[in-house]
């Protein structure tokens, strides 16, 4: 069974001219990154670039290391091999303090919001401000209320995280992520488990944050349709490397069966429906004997 990556690389390879252009104004550059967890390779020669001011989608089936990639970019883990540059700085060369300084220029939206459960909505959004500055209370208040207003939840400032719905929690987390005016905003699976209305709201907010605030956005997701509507660039991850790159439209019209299977969501194709198993009939008969 040929792997998805092998199939895809035969058909789509990123245009070299485009790749050079991409690295020129790249905020995040990943070059030939290798990473393995307990001997199991997650990435084997990963290359990608996130360009300033654009929404970059990173897509891929579950278990292809999308979240791992975010951990690499935010320097929570270090690559086994290869180079990771964020804001032009090589992550491998940075010490603890410099990594924290770098992270202050980033915001991240976690899949489950990751709001601090012992603080209310207002204090959650105020948290990074209070930790990183000595602004007077009045200014903190204005700042927090502005950000809450931007996500439409100024009225929920007094609520505790446990009282919020999934979509509201994610919006509060978004307000918290932008409160320090980051240059890069990273979204980890922002659409998972949301009702259509909340989903539309989050989708619109991502686009809005990007356009209005000029934030570079990295969206990791497997929700193809939602991403295609807002992404400027997209990458399809598979088998530890980039299987395809381009605009969402280019990806959808790709003639690679592997890319098409993912983009259209067909249950069977180069990525098989069945997990590898012994012969069905033989196994059933063996069970009877037992």
């Amino acid at each position: 069974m040929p792997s998805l990556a092998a199939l895809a690389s035969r058909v789509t390879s990123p245009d070299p001219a485009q790749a050079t252009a991409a690295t020129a104004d790249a905020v995040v550059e990943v070059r030939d990154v290798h990473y393995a967890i307990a001997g199991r390779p997650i990435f084997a020669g990963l290359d990608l670039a996130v360009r300033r001011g654009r929404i970059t989608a990173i897509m891929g089936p579950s278990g292809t290391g999308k979240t791992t990639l975010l951990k690499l970019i935010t320097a929570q883990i270090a690559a086994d091999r290869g180079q990771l540059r964020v804001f032009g700085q090589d992550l491998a060369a940075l010490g603890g303090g410099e990594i924290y300084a770098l992270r202050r220029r980033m915001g991240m939206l976690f899949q489950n919001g990751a709001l601090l459960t012992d603080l209310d909505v207002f204090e959650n959004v105020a948290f990074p401000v209070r930790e990183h500055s000595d602004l007077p209370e009045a200014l903190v208040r204005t700042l927090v209320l502005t950000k809450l207003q931007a996500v439409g939840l100024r009225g929920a400032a007094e609520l505790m995280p446990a009282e919020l719905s999934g979509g509201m929690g994610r919006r509060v987390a978004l307000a918290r992520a932008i409160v320090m005016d980051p240059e890069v905003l990273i979204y980890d699976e922002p659409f998972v488990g949301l009702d259509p209305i909340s989903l539309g709201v989050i989708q619109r907010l991502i686009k809005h944050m990007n356009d209005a605030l000029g934030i570079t956005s990295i969206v990791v997701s497997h929700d193809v349709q939602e991403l295609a509507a807002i992404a400027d660039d997209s990458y399809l991850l598979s088998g530890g490397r980039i299987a395809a790159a381009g605009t969402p439209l280019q990806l959808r019209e790709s003639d690679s069966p592997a890319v098409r299977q993912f983009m259209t969501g067909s249950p069977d194709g180069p990525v098989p429906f069945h997990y590898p198993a012994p012969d069905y009939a033989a196994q059933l008969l063996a069970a009877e004997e037992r």
Partner: protein
Amino acid sequence: MSTAVRDGLLLEGVRRLGAVVIFLVQLLMQCVPALARPRLIVHQVYNAGARSLIIIMLSGLFVGMVLGLQGYDLLQRFGSVEALGIAAALGLLKELAPVITALLFAGRAGTALTSEIGLMRATDQLTAMEIMAVDPLRYVAAPRFLGGVIAMPLLTAIFSIVGLYGAQLIGVQLMGVDRGVFWSQMQGAVDLHSVYEGLMKSVVFGIACSLIAVHEGYHAEPTAAGVGLATTRTVVASSVLTLLLDYVLTAAFL
């Protein structure tokens, strides 16, 4: 047990101990900046201390009452019930109050700390802090550790006082030991050294129990089962370590 297995276990033990010591050093380094936020620490003293008050006072009362009863029963065989006050005071101050408080603390406050921090880990709250360039060791772990270390001697003192009252309740009120003799004998025999011994023990137990609770929570596997396991480990490790340290400290003070 084969040598290979024994060596493996030994190695694992040393590795764990090393990990805890490294964690303690990191934690202590973060305790200094954490002191700049006294509000967080006060909140944790309330969490670990004030919220354990009822269980500590109830237990102290009953332990004191048992001490009064057993002590009276024993001492009256030798016709020296006057010594009941001394026996109760020394037993409580030097031994029972620090040890039982630590065991109760591990069960009440330690488990709460571990499961809280473990769940914060499981719900990405600690990671979110790291991404926001806030060290969770400083914001989450250090105030909780300090809160526990501060709360333990206070709880121990309260345990002792309530325990003495319990012993007095049984000895004097029920069994009829003379009130004046009970207190004056105690006053004469208990010196500052005994109080100091109990205090030292409670501080050491406070450090040990808080460290274990915070460490287990901080390194809990981020799953429901993982947090449950970490909570269990907190109680077991804290209890065993408390009793072990108690022996070491008692020997050191003799």
